[in-house]
């Protein structure tokens, strides 16, 4: 059987094994030294020739702050625009530090306190009364008990009162279970990585008390086209299960170029364009490319070009009628004038 998606520790098992062999002091409960974690995230080559692929492309100093935070008392909050790789970094940090990236709580408006602390196995509770066996631990509590790294995705989507449950957990490093008269106490190595979206600001803004329990690292959008193309191709290769060289670089470059122009609201030549309100993140570009690639493989002749990508671009960038106008203008004025006829036509056909 093959899983649709491997966890970070499964996908990078070889790399992690090589890094684990590196000598050096580890903070209590850590599988790797902080420097090895850094190498795992930003890439490098080991003495034995093992090449560590970069997981985060961008300023390594930010990753260093993130890693150092996890070795202190504070939890880590990764902030950024959608699609800047927050979850990706979070997952790989957890995999590298505790060898387990699966202790995850997905933050939604419907998440309740028991998803962060503990709940009950009601069949057992009714049959046996409150007992240790009837308690269902949340991923956070599992992480506390095992001294691992827990993750919360989209922290600010959690209702404020549920967020408050984290206050005691993060400062006391223990969660009392009054029904049993006991408490779950965190083992050395426990920490928490949360992500939150800058676009969601104001949804359920963190209270200042909770903010004080986090160190915040902001992950910016890739600041140059080459980095972004690199990220897109690497991720697409792993999604499609093919080596990077086998991917069509030219359409990917063109697509990343379009995304960057629309996102910035101006062309590479400095001419202003209207910015559609839809998603234009690096992750969206990856999605569009993956979709186009899949279609070309299974329904087309395998060639990837504007015709295969335009659908996806329109679908993700254009949310409103206004956005469609903006894209149409862009196709007719900018692309057509610049002689990118294939792109211009492919987009116009779909608008």
């Amino acid at each position, binding site marked *: 059987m093959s899983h649709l998606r491997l966890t970070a520790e499964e996908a990078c098992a070889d790399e992690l094994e090589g890094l684990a062999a590196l000598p050096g002091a580890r903070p209590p409960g850590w599988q790797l030294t*902080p*420097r090895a974690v*850094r190498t795992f995230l930003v890439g490098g080559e080991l003495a034995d020739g093992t090449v560590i692929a970069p997981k985060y492309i961008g300023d390594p*100093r930010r990753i*260093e*702050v993130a*890693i*150092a*935070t996890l*070795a*202190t*008392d*504070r939890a880590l909050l990764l902030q950024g625009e959608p699609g800047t790789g927050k979850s990706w970094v979070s997952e790989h940090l957890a995999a590298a530090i505790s060898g387990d990236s699966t202790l995850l709580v997905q933050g939604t408006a419907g998440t309740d306190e028991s998803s962060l602390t503990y709940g009950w196995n009601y069949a057992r509770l009714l049959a046996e009364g409150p007992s240790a066996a009837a308690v269902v631990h949340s991923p956070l509590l599992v992480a506390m008990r095992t001294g691992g790294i827990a993750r919360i995705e989209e922290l600010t989507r959690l209702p404020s009162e549920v967020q408050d449950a984290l206050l005691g957990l993060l400062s006391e490093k223990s969660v009392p279970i009054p029904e049993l008269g006991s408490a779950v106490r965190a083992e050395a190595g426990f920490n928490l990585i949360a992500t939150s979206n800058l676009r969601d600001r104001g949804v359920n803004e963190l209270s*200042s008390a909770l*903010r*004080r329990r986090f*160190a*915040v*690292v*902001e992950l910016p959008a890739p600041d140059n086209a080459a980095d972004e193309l690199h990220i897109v191709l690497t991720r697409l290769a792993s999604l499609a299960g093919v080596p990077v060289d086998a991917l069509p670089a030219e359409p990917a470059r063109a697509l990343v170029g379009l995304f960057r122009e629309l996102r910035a609201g101006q062309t590479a030549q400095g001419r202003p364009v209207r910015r559609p309100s839809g998603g234009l993140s690096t992750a969206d570009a990856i999605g569009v490319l993956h979709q186009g690639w899949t279609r070309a493989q299974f329904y087309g002749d395998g060639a990837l070009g504007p015709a295969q990508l335009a659908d996806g671009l329109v679908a993700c960038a254009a949310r409103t009628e206004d956005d469609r106008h903006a894209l149409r203008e862009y196709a007719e004025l900018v692309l057509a004038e610049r002689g990118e006829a294939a792109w211009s036509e492919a987009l116009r056909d779909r608008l």
Partner: protein
Amino acid sequence: MTVRLFPVRHCGAASARALRTALDAWSPTAVVIEAPPEAEALLLDVGGGELAPPVAMLAWDRAQPERSLATPLAAFSPEWVALSWAVRSGAGLRFADLPMSRRLALASPLSEARDDQLAALGREAGWVDPAEWWAELLGTGDDDGWERARQAIRRARVHQDGPHGVRASPEDSPLEARREAAMRQVVREVVRQGHARIAVVVGAWHAPALEDLSAVGEDRRLLTGLDRVRVGVAWIPWTHDLLRVDAGYGAGVDEPAWTACWAEHGEERDVRWVGRWTAALREHGTPASAAGAADALWLATQLASLRELARPGVEELDEAVAAVFPADAVAAVRARVHGSEAMGRVPVDGAAVPLLAAARRDLRRLRLPTEPRPVPLELDLRQVTAVERSSCLHRLRLLGAGARRDEDEVRYRENWTLRWGPQQERALVASSPWGTDLASAAAMRLSRQLERDAPLAVRVAWVHDALLAGLPSVVGPALQRVEAAAGARADELLVAAAGLADAASYGFVRADRAEVGAVAGRLLRSGLAALPSTARDPAAVVLLLQALDAGRRAARLLTTEQVVWERALERLAVDPAVSPRIAGRAARMAVEDEVDVDVFAAAQRRLDPNQPDAAAAWIEGLVEGSATALVHRPALWQPLDRWLHALGPASFERVLPALHRAFASLPPTARDQLAAALAQGEVALGERAPVDGERAAVVRRGVEAWTGPLGGPSAG
């Protein structure tokens, strides 16, 4: 007799601390410091309360004051520590370096030895930050530490200089070879004077070259036959910000505030630095608890170990603070924490350049702010002191020092932005040959400018400058230069006349302006005399339209020239050779100024159906921007209406854009006024052709297709 070398990093906090310890412990009887010997004259000021670092010893070539070299000293400079120690303890004190009189005579007086060399050595030794490396070598500043530092640098110099022995090669780096020779000469002299313990404080790179004091003859050869210039020296205030830049020592410091913190607090520097942040955050209104500070320190320590540093540096501390405290608040107080605006103080009189001392006196007397950041200042010239302050600021502006005049709307008000710092003081030093006080220097500088050939507008600006800066002696010569501007065109003359008339009417704030008014009148008259010929040139139309406005303003301000102006207008309005747009404008101005001109006759002549373009241009001149003529002289509608009817379809289409331009430029109220006058039949138009009902119906249907049914009688 013992000579002990103390190799320091310029602006190095660890060096300064270690040096203080060493001096206290060893108590030398004489201290030799790497600094220009001429600057010894400035030492009298050290120890008085008026000198506070960061300051710089500025040396300049008296013949060319813009050639200057500053030797900056911060509180954390080892040189500053050494000289204050020597002054305090009464030890002998000498400066050792190539005299500035020789150095400023060179094509490039900038040092060839850089701290980069030290940084490179540090990196070789496995240190990212050369400051940390040197700090580690020196330790607490005991003898062992200094010996370690001496050996490290000696190895590097031996490696570089090779066969020459440890001294800079006169072929490869002539300046450095001579500087080191001069330093050795001074050390020899001090030795000859028989001091028991001599401390020599020099940039680390030079130290090994001062160990061997033999080869006297060679040094003397190196130092003879050099060109020399006369130099002046003075203290000038310096800023932390400027310390970032390489200066006389060829060494900058990236983070002056951090270095100062280090120098002051030593081992506690990281705690104190985070403390600076939390204090600034609290002042900003952001809660920053001690617990948060502790978290930031912990994070910085982890970060340092991840980066394989012995202890956190300023970058780690800043990054940790930014992660732990709210990002926007951190960004808001960053400038305050890094405190780059700190500026030193120097004695107001002291050994300063006379011009600089005079400027400082003026600034203090007039209570003008002297801060390194831009300070806005608003002057109400109806007050006597404000006029004096304004003159002072204009003088500074003329000397290129620190005062910028901003746009102002009201005549009796001036808006300024002031900035006072080392650059401004240097600008004054550079201006020092012009005079010994601001007024004489500004006057001299402006007089020199007058000698240049320049367009009329610039010459008028000179008159303004002379008046505004309160330099009466220059007003006359500047006016002569205005009148001497030969071959100016009519439009230039009129604009210049308006400019001078403006200046002449400063009357209520400045002194007597009769002379200026007289020149303005002469300019106006010659401009008006030249007008008719220029007005025939179709290419000059746009410039002339503006010039007419200027001429009118000048005539109004001067009052004596009203008659000349009216006569000129009349001639323009009636002369058939004047290009039509100008003639139209002159006609309107005549109506507006109530000049007795037969505008009706002019209109009849100008509105010729056989010359539709010229006629349209005349109308454009008449109407563009103001409907006065048509409102006050309703009779004008008649020739206009007659002309329009007489146009054939082709001619009509030709003139339509010009007419549209003219009427569209009117403000909405004026257009309403005209439309109302027409609708109410106040203006008598000629015979109208009867409406052709059939053709009107076609138009009506077309319009109704867009607007829906129109009311009123249907033509049909």
